[in-house]
């Protein structure tokens, strides 16, 4: 049974990654959205390096939150429309685990690229080397939480009127702790303070979200399918 659970997890993961690979433009759009939003801030605030260094972590994190929101509406929508989600719900394996596989695939496609490009964007904001590393590590720990928590909102708004704006209202307030400690880590590093506490808390959020949110997402998916 555990073997079949693991193979089902891998199958869902591979399928979602394959689908994302076949529709590369979707992935690239959110990726460039992130880069463009971050690049707009120096134009709005002015190119003063000290200001840019101060706002960089917050800007990158808020842009990551918005990008994650933008990508979330696609997490279940396609599978909901073509009936795949119903088949997943009927599968003998726990729906929570299958939803976790979908969320992981979603993060690999939309979250991980942001983590990888973030140091380059940090350079545009004149962040020092140490802060770049801290920001990247914080994003690596924090963006999966965004996908996990966002998945609950994505499942709740399946097939609902005005789903994308509604999703933002539901999910963004729940992102606040991740934003605070994610941006706080890099800011603390810029001002020479210890970042261990921030990163530990982000890790704790990740563990809590990974343990609880797939079950809430599964419950929400079942409600949407009724």
């Amino acid at each position, binding site marked *: 049974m555990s073997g079949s659970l693991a193979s089902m997890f891998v199958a869902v993961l591979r399928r979602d990654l394959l689908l994302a690979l076949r529709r590369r433009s979707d992935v690239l759009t959110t990726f460039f959205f992130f880069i463009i939003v971050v690049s707009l801030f120096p134009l709005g605030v002015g190119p003063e390096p000290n200001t840019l260094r101060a706002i960089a972590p917050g800007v990158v994190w808020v842009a990551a939150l918005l990008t994650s929101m933008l990508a979330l509406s696609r997490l279940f929508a396609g599978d909901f429309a073509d009936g795949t989600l119903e088949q997943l719900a009927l599968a003998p394996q726990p729906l929570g685990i299958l939803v976790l596989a979908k969320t992981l695939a979603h993060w690999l496609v939309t979250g991980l690229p942001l983590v990888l490009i973030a140091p380059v964007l940090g350079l545009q904001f004149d962040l020092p080397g140490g802060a770049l590393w801290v920001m990247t590590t914080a994003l690596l720990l924090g963006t999966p939480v965004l996908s996990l*928590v966002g998945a*609950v*909102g994505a499942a*709740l*708004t399946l097939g*609902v*009127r*005005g*789903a994308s704006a*509604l999703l933002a*209202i*539901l999910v*963004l*307030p*729940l992102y*606040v*702790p991740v934003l*605070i*400690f994610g941006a*706080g880590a890099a800011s603390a590093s810029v001002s020479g303070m210890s970042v261990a506490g921030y990163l530990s808390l982000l890790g704790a*959020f990740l563990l*809590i979200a990974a343990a*609880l*949110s797939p079950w*809430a997402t599964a*419950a*929400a998916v079942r*409600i*949407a399918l*009724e």
Partner: protein
Amino acid sequence: MNQRIFRFASPQTFYPLAGQMIPLFMTLAAVLCAVGLYIGLFVAPTDFQQGEVYRIIFIHVPAAWMSMFIYVVMAFWCAVGLAMNTRLSFMMALALAPTGALMTAVALWTGSLWGKPTWGTWWAWDARMTSELILLFLYIGFLSLHAAIDDPRRADRAAAVLALVGVVNIPIIYFSVKWWNTLHQGASVSITRAPSMARTMLWGMLIMALAAWMYSIAAALMRVRSIILERENAAEWVAQLPEVKGQ
């Protein structure tokens, strides 16, 4: 005993009971509010540091307490509804949400009015104000998700899941925001410490909090009666109600 209580889990039996309870709670709210305001405005001494302006505490603190309490009660009814599959629980949760949002808005508004003369600013990004603002967003999220779904059963259940996710998150959000910034004066009423305020002030505040509590119950009962009528409008017993027949 159990059966007699659970009888009221049905909208049909709860509707007249709620109708009987509303005048009771409204009267209690009015009396307590009159007593609390009298103590607050006339009996309580003028504050040594803040002068008369501190008296907004008699509205502000009860509203802030109720805003948090109502969210927990709402989440409780959502959990009961999801676990027991009782329609009335979801209706109760939906009836509580606007009152909770109202209390949150009142707490923010009076806090802002209080902040201007004492701190010299309408808004400070401190822990309690920020978490109260996020609480308002959570209420708005609950109400807008419910409003966006046409099928009442699905709307009830989806909003219930959201309320439960929110109630798990509220302590995390609160402590995150608290760590992020603290500018507020320390909590002046806590269960573990002896209160550092005059006894009459404390009494005034507690009586006002009770008044806000009674008002919230009465308002939620009124709203749940409307929701029952709206949802059950095809039922025979609704058609037999004197207030419906007369129309």
